[in-house]
């Protein structure tokens, strides 16, 4: 059983790394990029019986800092 967690900086939190990527893309001539946000993907291998609620707890306690980050979970 697997879960994929996406962690992104919340809207309204400046993402200087995303901004730097946007500049670099512009410098390469990709002039249609209006914004870049950079985040993290965390893949979890889970034992049978693990639930989305377990992963939510992991996100709240460790995987995301909810002061600055939001997260979403895909169970597969």
């Amino acid at each position: 059983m697997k879960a994929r967690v996406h962690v992104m900086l919340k809207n309204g939190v400046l993402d200087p790394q995303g901004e730097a990527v946007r500049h670099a893309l512009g410098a390469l001539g990709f002039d249609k990029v209006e914004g870049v946000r950079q985040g993290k993907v965390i893949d979890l291998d889970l034992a049978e019986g693990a639930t989305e609620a377990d992963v939510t707890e992991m996100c709240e306690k460790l995987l995301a800092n909810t002061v600055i980050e939001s997260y979403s979970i895909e169970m597969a």
Partner: protein
Amino acid sequence: MMKAAVVVFPGSNCDRDLAVAFEQAGFEVSMVWHKDSALPEGVDIVGVPGGFSYGDYLRCGAIAAQSPICQAVVEHTKRGGYALGVCNGFQILTETGILPGALLRNAGLKYICRTVDLKVATADSAFTQGYSVGDEIGIPIAHHDGNYFADAETVKMLQDQDRIAFTYAENPNGSVADIAGILSENRRVLGMMPHPERAADDGHGGTDGTAMFRALSGIFANA
């Protein structure tokens, strides 16, 4: 004798500097390992040092905040104990929830290592009573993720409660409201990105941090 404990994580690199600064101010210092689950008996103040605890994996301070010793530090502060978190130590204190907000990547994306001018924003704490409000002190910074962030409501609360200890005279890293260091609600925990322990000896090229450690020793000596 006044007792300080300095926490050592894998990747801490300012632990001995912090210990020396406490010692020079008259503290008896013990080093505590991250796997310890209790602080030594009778500790007055805990120092959480700078460095790269657990390699900054996941987020700066995130893994350290879950270590056994950090749970003991949380308990210590809940009992009204004092703590000083510097640089990575500040990041760890925010990750534990002892202090509000978070530290983001510097706005300019670069690691910055130089002495900056800080403005003392409050003298109403054990850490800052050796200064006067408005004093400018030169304290080194050395960080990649020192961009303090908190939502507008939290920043207003910090301002209203006079909990901003230091601001940058010239903001080097994008921190909201130029914040360089903040206090807990009971004013007994200070987290700051600049390194007062690196400005606490003539050999450092500056001694503007000395007043913090002296003021702390004054508090405990009279306690």
